[in-house]
């Protein structure tokens, strides 16, 4: 659709996505619709701020998936990340406003880094604005780090996650569902689209990225255990899951040319799997905190947990198996340590799942009002989608079947059981955590406050230049000149001028 260029901004170009991007677009759209439905019934319609931010974020998110050109993508990305601020501060409480401020500062910072990165890429591809043309240009260390930082701040894996555990709990349930499900995935989508797979420099950096993935995975899971509120735990679980998604991406980058299509599909499956289960969990946590959970809700709650811990029969198992398979393909084939790390990851996720289940049961109060039917319907749709994922994704079925083999069941089963035992021992038997470790407040809020103080300082008014107080001396000089001395002074000057000039010439 080249004639768009002459109408919209230079290089404007949109295309109907096909292949993996179509799936990505599909589950994002589903997520936004369900969250919209859920919030339609639980959030009061006259909240203009919430609804305008919600719709702007949705448009931005969908736009960036469709965009084929840099400016279009950047437009969608910026629209989404900035309008999400409205969602975070919706509740208006102090905590929400502080989290919102941190979120916005980091979003703006990420925005600028991304702007610089895209510019450098366009400059490297000497002015070509289509994303496909950018793939040819080589990456420079500066551009790559800027891209990783820019998209990382949105994706929220380990070192750049500081805003995530603050923002998600503050946002209302559907908003945090969408935030976790669709928006942070956009960061990953950006990384996937803008960093060309076969780049030499990238291959050099891959081992470091690998370390990043696993540290994010373990960090997220372990820190979740320290917190008592369900939404915070879910936020940290998103951090750890983003670690795994980054792992899928790293594997995609490192996989050989023929296997890359398959790796791409695996990446999208994992993203879709995580999106559906995380949004369902967030809706569940939201419902648990303000509504009464009926019996079938518990079932709808259990299935995402099962899928999270990748137990057989769930999409999680299929995707995890695919991941293990892929490990053996690319350059990391001979790294023996990786499968072990994956199992430890599975163990920590299971622990997290049990911790979450315990918290949910703890918080359950039967006295709260019943969840409105449309909200529970949308929650149900999400759970069913996650449940039936292997069916409407035909390519996933072979992996799903292999995960169902006895070896697969055993490999998936023992970590969950071990985690259950460990968690039970830790809660009832072992020493409880020291109080200071309970719900640690992140230092990021302090930094954000310091930053705000330095840009809202009071300016001292400069004092106007005081007019000289010479009036007195001038009046005295004038009086002396005009009264006594004018005639002698003038005539002597006349003669002096003549004399002086005669002497000088």
């Amino acid at each position, binding site marked *: 659709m080249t004639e768009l260029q002459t109408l919209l901004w230079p290089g404007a170009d949109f295309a109907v996505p096909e292949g993996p991007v179509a799936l990505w677009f599909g589950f994002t759209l589903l997520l936004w619709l369900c969250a919209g439905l859920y919030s339609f019934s639980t959030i009061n319609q006259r909240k203009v701020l919430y609804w305008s931010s919600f719709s702007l974020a949705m448009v931005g998110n969908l736009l960036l998936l469709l965009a084929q050109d840099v400016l279009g993508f950047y437009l969608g990305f910026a629209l989404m990340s900035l309008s999400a601020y409205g969602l975070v501060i919706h509740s208006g409480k102090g905590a929400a406003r502080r989290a919102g401020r941190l979120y916005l500062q980091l979003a703006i910072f990420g925005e600028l880094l991304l702007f610089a990165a895209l510019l450098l890429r366009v400059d490297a591809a000497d002015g070509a604005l289509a994303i496909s043309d950018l793939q040819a240009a080589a990456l420079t260390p500066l551009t790559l780090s800027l891209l990783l930082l820019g998209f990382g701040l949105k994706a929220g894996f380990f070192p750049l996650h500081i805003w995530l555990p603050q923002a998600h709990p503050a946002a209302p349930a559907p908003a945090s569902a969408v935030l976790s499900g669709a928006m942070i995935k956009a960061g990953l989508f950006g990384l996937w689209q803008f960093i060309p797979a076969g780049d030499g420099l990238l291959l050099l950096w891959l081992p470091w990225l690998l370390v990043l993935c696993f540290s994010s995975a373990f960090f997220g899971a372990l820190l979740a255990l320290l917190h008592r509120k369900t939404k915070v735990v879910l936020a940290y679980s998103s951090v750890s899951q983003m670690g795994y998604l980054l792992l899928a991406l790293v594997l995609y980058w490192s996989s050989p040319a023929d296997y890359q299509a398959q790796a791409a599909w695996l990446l999208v499956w994992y993203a879709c799997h995580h999106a559906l289960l995380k949004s369902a969990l967030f809706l569940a946590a939201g419902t648990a905190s303000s509504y009464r959970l009926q019996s079938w809700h518990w079932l709808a709650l259990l299935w995402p947990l099962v899928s999270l811990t990748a137990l057989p029969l769930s999409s999680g198992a299929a995707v995890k198996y695919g991941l293990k398979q892929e490990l053996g393909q690319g350059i990391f084939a001979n790294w023996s340590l990786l499968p072990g790390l994956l199992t430890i990851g599975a163990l920590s996720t299971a622990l997290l799942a049990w911790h979450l289940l315990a918290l949910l049961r703890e918080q359950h109060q039967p006295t709260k009002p019943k969840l409105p039917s449309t909200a529970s319907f949308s929650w149900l749709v999400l759970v069913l989608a996650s449940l039936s994922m292997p069916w409407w994704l035909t390519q996933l079925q072979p992996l799903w079947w292999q995960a169902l083999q006895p070896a697969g069941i055993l490999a998936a089963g023992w970590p969950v059981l071990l985690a259950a035992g460990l968690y039970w021992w830790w809660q009832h038997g072992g020493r409880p955590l020291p109080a200071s470790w309970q719900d640690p407040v992140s230092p990021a809020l302090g930094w954000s406050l310091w930053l705000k103080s330095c840009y809202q300082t009071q300016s001292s008014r400069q004092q106007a230049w005081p007019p000289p107080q010479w009036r007195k001396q001038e009046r005295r000089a004038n009086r002396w*000149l*005009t009264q006594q001395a004018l*005639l002698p002074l*003038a005539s002597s000057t*006349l003669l002096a001028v*003549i004399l002086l*000039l005669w002497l000088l010439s």
Partner: protein
Amino acid sequence: MNFALAAVLLPLLAAVLALCWRRQAARLVWLSTLFSLLLALAALWQVVTFGPASMQLGGWQTGLAIRWQLNELSALLLLMTALIHSLVASYSLSQWRDAGLSADFWPLSALLQSALSSLFLSVDLFNWYVTLELLGLAAVALVLLSGKKALQAAMRYLLLSLAASLCYLLGVALLYGHYGWLDVPQLAVAISEEPVDHRLALWLITAGLMLKAALWPLHVWLPAAHAAAPAPVSALLSALVVKGPLFMLYMIWSQLAGPELAVTGSWLFLLTGSMALVVGGWSALRTPYAKVMVAYSTVAQLGYGLLALGLMLHLTDPAFTQALFIFVLAHALAKTSTFLAVGEMQLRLGGKRLSTFRGASQTMPLAMFAVAVAGGSLIGLPPSGGFVAKWQLLLPLWQHSQLWWLLPVILAGTLLSAAYIFRLVVLAFNRAKPVRPDFAPALLPQWLALLPALLVWMLAFASGSLLSWLGG
């Protein structure tokens, strides 16, 4: 030459007749100024088409008789005199009843006009002395028109101008003693043939003329005299009377000074010009009285004339002559408009100090607009005449790096003039407590004050022909 002669005689006749029929004096002199304006235009047209002409008064050969020389320069100065006089005459005709201007103003101003016209035409040293004396006495008499408050200033002005005339006469006597010629061109020829050390004569003449033209070190009499005089008189004084001696300085120094004397003379004029710009500007900025400010502005603006004269001697480039006389023309028009407007406002708002002009842009917008537009030319904003003069002054300066210090001086002068002009303009926009005139001020005097300002504002567009005529 006939038109120029008529332009000199007509005001003379008008003055004499005005003394005979005192009741018709005003209309008579007013008509004579208009006719002399037409005659001056005809003289200019004649010079432009048939070239310069000269006339020995009485038909005797040069040296013995007084010689009148009519070239583009003197024709233009004649035209300036006639124009300013007609403007001032019509202004005073329109408001002399309420301003209480005595009937003696008319013969005196006619005499002033004929004296000035004959000064611009003649090239005879002694004749210059007599016209200079006539000019001085007429000016003092005119200053006395505003009664008691002008006595002190007029007396000082008279005594100092008498002393200056005597210095000038002594200089002329010495020159005649050395070379025997009173006719300036002939004297120049005599000097070039066998030069004799006539330094003292030249310095005496220069000092005398500097005092008469109120150039910087000898300017102390001007502010009191021009401020005390009634508005039309101070316009005439500042615009014309001060320019006569400046013209004589130019004629004498451009022809009689030998090469090495010219260098010393140029340093004198450059230094005094710079000091005039700075000191005059600063005094104008600091004085609380309106007309004194405008008077000091004359002292400052004459600094530009001095700079042009000094540079002409230093670098012998005709552009500076053009700059000098464009400045004389532009300053005459601008100063006339400023003095008439300030005088009118001072009369209507009733107060000498600048603070009485608060809110004048509301109460008397036309007069205030005249001051602003004329101020624009004094500062030298394009497309005014002042701008053209400054432009011609600046152009040759860039190549001569040894005169670099003149640029900051000119810049300082311009900024100081902008400061004191806008000091008045900003005050006029103060709507907080405007000073209200007691009755609706008449519009005709304000329009007449505005006319010269508009003329000088558009001077740049006519500068092409002006500069070619002053190519001199």
